[in-house]
């Protein structure tokens, strides 16, 4: 991670109410699932809590075998 990008999180707004998630009262925690970047969000304005996954590659689950 470059010094420039330390602590810089790409997501900015609550998907539920549109309030800024960068306000100190709210919570935004970036983590990783395999090659996907995940944003764990909690909006202090509307209390929405959820995760947003930034997709690098679109994959489908394995299909059930017959």
């Amino acid at each position, binding site marked *: 991670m470059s010094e420039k990008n330390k*602590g810089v999180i790409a997501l900015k707004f609550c998907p539920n109410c549109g309030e800024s998630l*960068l306000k100190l009262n709210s*919570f935004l*925690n970036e983590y*990783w699932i395999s090659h996907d970047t995940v944003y764990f969000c909690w909006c202090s304005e509307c209390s929405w809590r959820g995760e947003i996954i930034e997709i690098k590659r679109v994959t489908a689950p394995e299909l059930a075998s017959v």
Partner: protein
Amino acid sequence: MLSKEQNDQLTQIGPGTPMGELLRRYWQPIAASSEVEKIGSTKKVKLLGEDLVLYRDKLNNLGLVAERCAHRGVSLEYGIPEKCGIRCQYHGWLYNADGQCIEQPNEPGNSTFKNRIKIAGYKVKELGGLVFAYLGPAPAPELPRWDLFVRKNVIRAIGYAIVPCNWLQIMENSLDPTHLEWLHGHYFQHVFEQQGRPQEEWPITKHHIKIGFDEFEWGIIKRRVLEGQTEENEDWAIGHPIVFPNILRVGDRGAHSFQIRVPMDDTHTLHFWYTCFIPKEGVKVPDDYPISLYECPIKDENGKFITDYIDGQDMMAWITQGPIADRTTERLGTSDKGIIMYRQMLKRELKKVQEGKDPKCVIRDPQKNECIELPQEENKFSEGELLTGVAKDWNTRYAPNLDEIIAICRGEKVVSSIS
């Protein structure tokens, strides 16, 4: 990864900071009762960024005031506890338990100067062999009577260390179940190998199949399924709690314990290991059996971390992250979801305090506080009395009376060697 602003907010605990205000809503242990047992004794303590002096006055009451006399800044650690407060050893100014100056022997008799002199003074209470302080706004809530503090027929032992790092990275360790199989499993085997001890004697290396976290009334229940287990096993079905905001409960059938992380300042944490040893069925513990107090060492004589006991391994992991872990560079994965959940819970409770509400685990109803039972698995890792079996490989190995405790709990006749 967190932003720098988020990391600062969660880790800074001094007066006036949001996290400091949240933590001030809770009674915090500051000493063992045995340290200030004697009338006239004093102890310097640091809590939430404030330098304080704990003392026992001549009426056998405990007091807690700011360390420095308002007159010339002398430390009251060397003050003289009297009937109703502590007197400065330098010029005799006397402060009551609220920190109000009530005597200035060398000022004119009719002077009102003393009325304008006040230092900080805080409430203190004793429970279960610990002294607790409350630094928050009045009225103080109930001092929580968590089950281990009030349980009968157990032997208590209190270990402590001043850990030179921020409190949050210590708490996050408790929301991270998988470190068990590595730090206390494979790494322990490595240490055994280095020491020439048989590695196969160590039971904590099973792989985690599943971990889970559930919020409950008093915090978060942490659960795990290890290789060879199912969800029927107690490690998942019962789990053990993180009591919000800064206590871990852990144990097995033979020993239940709290790990209490008390923030002294942003880069130091007073850590207590509060253990209740449970005697075998039918064994009665002597009523007056003393609570031993012991220090858990962090480093050896060469300045290296002591890593051949579980809690020493934990301390190495906490401290080597730095005085305050830099979360702007961390790379969390799916196994770190408990840590993320805990951080978000802290943020939610910060908001409650900012709105003037009581946060989680602030108890106002005395009836609810008679004895608060906490869930905890007893058949740990499907190994039964695992922790008791390895008592010499965790912090209790430094208890001066460990062999005696184990003998009493087994029902053997012993002549106590400690007073």
